[in-house]
């Protein structure tokens, strides 16, 4: 069902955990649907220098969370914001069609984290 790459990220997820001094946090999904992704990012000079995740969800949810941390790290937030769920799926060499929608929330989580970062920055500069 899953590609080898999905299984690799599922069995050895990269960047699991939290960042205590994160300056952006994104959370998407809800427990009702069986998928929650939470992403922590650390942004320095507009570049994502650290990223960690925690995910409640199926194999696809965990693998997409893991792979997006690899895709995002080192990118500027403007670049990272452009990553789509489709690209995430492609990076994993495809996902089963039933998983494309319900369990591939990674790009949305990343966007949410970046938005949170921007809000924090705006709040800080305003104060």
């Amino acid at each position, binding site marked *: 069902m899953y590609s080898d790459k999905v*299984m690799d990220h599922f069995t050895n997820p990269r960047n699991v955990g939290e960042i205590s001094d994160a300056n952006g946090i994104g959370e998407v999904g809800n427990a*009702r*649907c*069986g998928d929650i992704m939470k992403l922590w990012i650390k942004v320095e000079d507009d570049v994502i220098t650290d990223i960690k995740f925690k995910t*409640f969800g*199926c194999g696809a949810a965990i693998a997409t969370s893991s792979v997006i941390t690899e895709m995002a790290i080192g990118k500027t937030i403007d670049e990272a914001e452009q990553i789509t769920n489709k690209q995430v799926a492609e990076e994993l060499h495809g996902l089963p069609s039933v998983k494309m929608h319900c369990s591939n929330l990674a790009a949305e989580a990343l966007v949410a984290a970046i938005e949170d970062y921007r809000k924090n920055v705006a709040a800080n500069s305003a104060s």
Partner: protein
Amino acid sequence: MNEIYMDHAATTPVRQEVVEAMLPFFGSEYGNPSSVYGWGRRSRQALDQARDKVSELIGAEASEIIFTSGGSEGANLAIKGVAWAYQTKGKHIVSSAVEHHAVLDSVLWLKKQGFEVTIVPVDEEGMVSPAEVEKALRPDTILVSIMHANNEVGTIQPIKEIAEVVRGHGAFFHTDAVQTAGVLDINVAELGVDLLSLSAHKLYGPKGVGALYVRKGVRLDPLIHGGAQERRRRAGTENVAGIVGLAKALELAHLDRDEENARLVKLRDRLLEGLQQIPHTKINGSLVHRLPNNVNVCFQYIEGESMLLNLDLRGIAASSGSACTSGSLDPSHVLLAMGLTHEIAHGSLRLTLGRDNNEADIDFVLQEIPVIVERLREMSPLYQR
């Protein structure tokens, strides 16, 4: 890697004796049972013997058995067949919230065609109460369909009591015995049912064959029209090899049913006990009225499919009521009907034991599961130690 199969409610291996009983009917004995010549008569005889055996084992007469392509066809034929045949008498059907989709979706499709449907709720153990069924019955109720035992949580329903209630109201009663045939006593006279469906591949027989018991006098419109097979109630050249396999499998199951059940109950309880040691774990289904081989638990804060994948990586085959295994968004309708929240229902795990399992398997599973649960919880944003 050692592979351990613990998903016997999904399907079972075909027993060697069953395969051997089937083989001649792929080989030299290929005749069409409707033919008058030697090959045909020999196939007919095998079919008759299989029918005699199956009917005897469930306390029915041979003429009351219709061979089908499995449990789903049996349930569809029972429900739609009776609905169509008796639609002038009434258009109300009663079923329960924990039925297999073969029953539920048949009933819901009939609703679309103009029938009326009442779905009876269950309690937190997944049990249907005869009183609730009684409440649902109306003068125009023609059929009630309540399963014998649930395929997810293993809860055994009080079929005898429900059948009595239904009979008192003059409706027909179908029970889906796919999970109990070969395991529990499914004597149709004892149970008091009018229709009963079963499937070979759940009892160590082949996939794609089943049987529907229809009490004499109960009319059915066929689901599959055509030739005069199965007394004009199910057309199509008979799957002779499969039917012979079904009869053999059911016969073998009955030989040592009691010993095997006792053995399974021991294994099951050892497994249940071990799993309960894991914190934030909920056992689903009745502990008393339960299939001998069923274990169903929810591990809070984790999702079922990722559990299954991890088990598979360790060679353990199991199943889940997880939404993600079915491609839908909602988790098991059974667990939801029992009052579980979506969050918890997503984290369910079903382990169903069988003839090939032993104590060592249980111990291995009990060693692996806590590690997996812990690892997934570590990864879960919902989990706070």
